[in-house]
């Protein structure tokens, strides 16, 4: 894909890795904030290619993981009600609330639909004027503007049977909360490029100054991530702590003013609960009073839901870099990819699942982080003369 393949070039990646190796003189712990970056790191095996001095800590930037249990239970309650069409992005359907998930609500007769855009949900509302259509608006500064625009459109087009269940969160207050933890091990941040493409970089210099950490705005392709790591390590080695933009093809200092204006019109900043972290002041959005009639929480009066959090999973500490996956009592025993206790064990991209899989790959000692312990799967396969010749990718 144009502008994608170029950022996956193995030769250029090799050069960046050489530069990183030449720069690093001591161990550093960096946090990639965004779940999309974590996905890319695992998908391309980037963590194993970095020098062992560099530890990547997977941050709390997965919108699915940080959506509080109470909000998921509200979604389940609303989706179960007769006459409701509940619309959501796909990966929220598998997230369990207290005792069930949206897939099961659908299995019990609830009308739960996967959509690819909030505007799809608005179209469904138009097509079903006798039904209540609710869209589950979760995520960071990236998914909030289109959700805000959809509510704005609903108001403009007088589509009254559409409402939004809002659980939006903001990245900078979370970085601040992580850095305020006395046990915090993070020494530098790869900031989430797509969040900054919306919000710009104005919120970050104060964080870098306050906590004395370099913050490098980073993209999602392998070369983007390696460049983010290179710049962060360079700052750390020099004792600097500034904000840099290593994702200039998508991010400007001012961000996207139109999206910000839409956010200001429809939402207002509010305290938000983060699963695993707790309530962080001013860390999220709710619909402003002017749009309250499109607020699903208000419309469906989902109060007094009995929410029960299981206690065994410690992936919150893993995500903050306070605990290595294999230091958790449940790791590999009561918690495995086949029967996970936490999101970090659910998919092969999760920190705990990666550790678990690499430990299975590695017959050696558990407990080392994947880059140090992951073997090369089998070395280079013995040559097959016909191997790649004529392959569409050769």
């Amino acid at each position, binding site marked *: 894909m144009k502008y994608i393949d170029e950022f*996956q070039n*193995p030769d250029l990646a090799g050069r960046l890795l050489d530069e990183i190796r030449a720069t690093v003189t001591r161990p550093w712990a960096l946090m990639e904030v*965004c*779940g*999309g970056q974590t996905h890319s790191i*695992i*998908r*391309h*095996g980037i*963590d*194993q290619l970095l020098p062992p001095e560099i530890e990547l800590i997977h941050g709390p930037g997965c919108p*699915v993981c*940080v959506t509080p249990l109470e909000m*998921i239970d509200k979604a389940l309650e609303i989706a179960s009600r007769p006459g409701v069409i509940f619309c959501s*992005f*796909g*990966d929220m*359907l*598998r997230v*369990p609330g207290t005792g069930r*998930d949206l897939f099961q609500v*659908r*299995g*019990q007769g609830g009308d739960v639909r*996967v959509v*690819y855009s909030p505007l799809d949900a608005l179209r469904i509302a138009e097509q079903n004027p006798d039904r209540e259509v609710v869209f589950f608006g979760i*995520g960071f500064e990236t*998914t909030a503007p289109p959700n805000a625009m959809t509510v704005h459109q609903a108001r403009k087009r007088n589509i009254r049977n559409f409402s939004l269940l809002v659980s939006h969160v903001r990245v900078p207050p979370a970085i601040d909360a992580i850095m305020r933890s006395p046990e915090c091990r993070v020494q530098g941040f790869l900031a989430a490029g797509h969040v900054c493409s919306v919000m710009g970089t104005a919120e970050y210099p104060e964080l870098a100054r306050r906590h004395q950490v370099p913050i490098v705005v980073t993209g999602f392709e392998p070369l983007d991530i390696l460049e983010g790591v290179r710049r962060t390590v360079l700052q750390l080695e020099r004792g600097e702590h500034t904000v840099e933009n290593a994702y200039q093809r998508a991010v400007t200092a001012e961000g996207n003013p139109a999206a910000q204006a839409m956010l200001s019109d429809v939402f207002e900043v509010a305290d938000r609960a983060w*699963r*695993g*972290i707790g309530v962080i002041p001013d860390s999220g959005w709710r619909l402003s009073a002017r749009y309250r009639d499109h607020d699903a929480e208000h419309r469906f009066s989902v109060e007094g839901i009995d929410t029960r959090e*299981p*206690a065994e999973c410690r*992936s*919150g500490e*893993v995500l*903050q870099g306070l605990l290595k996956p294999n230091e958790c009592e449940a790791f590999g025993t009561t918690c495995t990819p086949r029967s*996970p206790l*936490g*999101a*970090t*064990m*659910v998919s*092969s991209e999760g920190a705990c699942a*990666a550790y678990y*899989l*690499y430990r299975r*790959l590695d017959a050696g000692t558990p407990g080392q982080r994947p880059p140090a312990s992951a*073997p090369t*799967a*089998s070395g280079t*396969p*013995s040559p*097959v*003369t*016909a*191997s*790649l010749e004529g392959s*569409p*990718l050769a």
Partner: protein
Amino acid sequence: MLAWTCPTPLRDHPRIVMGHGGGGALSAELIEGVFAPAYGGPALAHTADAAEIRIGGARLAFSTDSFVVRPLFFPGGSIGDLAVNGTVNDLAMSGARASHLSCGFILEEGVETDVVARVAQALGEAARAAGVQVVTGDTKVVEAGHGDGVYINTSGVGLIPDGVDLRPQRVVPGDVVIVSGPIGMHGVAIMSVREGLEFGVEITSDCAPLGGLVEAMLAVTRDLHVLRDPTRGGLAASLNEIAAASGTGVVLQERAVPVPEAVGNACAVLGLDPMYVANEGKLVAFVPRDHADAVLAAMRAHPMGAGAAVIGEAVETHPGMVVARTGLGGTRVVDMPLGEQLPRIC
């Protein structure tokens, strides 16, 4: 800070969910936990693409498959094509050339007769193209609202040639893994029409019969070890099944796996992995190293295998696991999908 407790998929399902039909771990659990104990016999016998039964001196491959695709017509095919090719290909994976099919229609009250006729026409044409006869059938009608227009079940039989023994248990370290062409096309084609998504170019399903390709491969050597038809769950599910059943590991060279640009783009937009996307006209083969070059050449000489590529090998290390060597030189584990792949939020 509070203790972190975050999402987990609920595995103890009191009711069936869509993931039970996704061809991944949930499907396997349903077979192992419900069907196999009820039917008796070894669980593995219920998970193969086709069963082998002996009648007199003949070895017969026997398979069944149901088709519930929506929409009924999609770029590159229809439910009628799928109903033939799905079962024909399941039989082909045991080395058999399908000879006879049964065809059961479950129709929803209210569906246009013309639609049923078009599906039947497509099914007949696909059967003629695959060289298989539809010899028996059944029709049921369910009340409006209790079906999705047209559901089809086909079952089929075919003879397994002498000297052919295709089972994952025959895989040995050193076997070469070959895929017959570009992956992910059927799944993306269906998604594009089902969800109204456009990816710049029309992606058509690869729905096609593979009996002829398998014959061409067996003409080179009858000593192929295992073939699989990577439909639901995609290439990843098939390779994991083979790795688990054979007790060997699999190493893929990720850059060697042929992914059409449009499929790659669509998957990038949706946050899906092409390795998990369904195919309907592809096979993956584990071939003894000594025969790999000749088998690959024979595949490329056949229209159904023109895009064939070596993508990896079976190894002694990490038995039961599939590991991909990434384009950058790292490794990642390609795990068994749990249920259906879901588009990621970010």
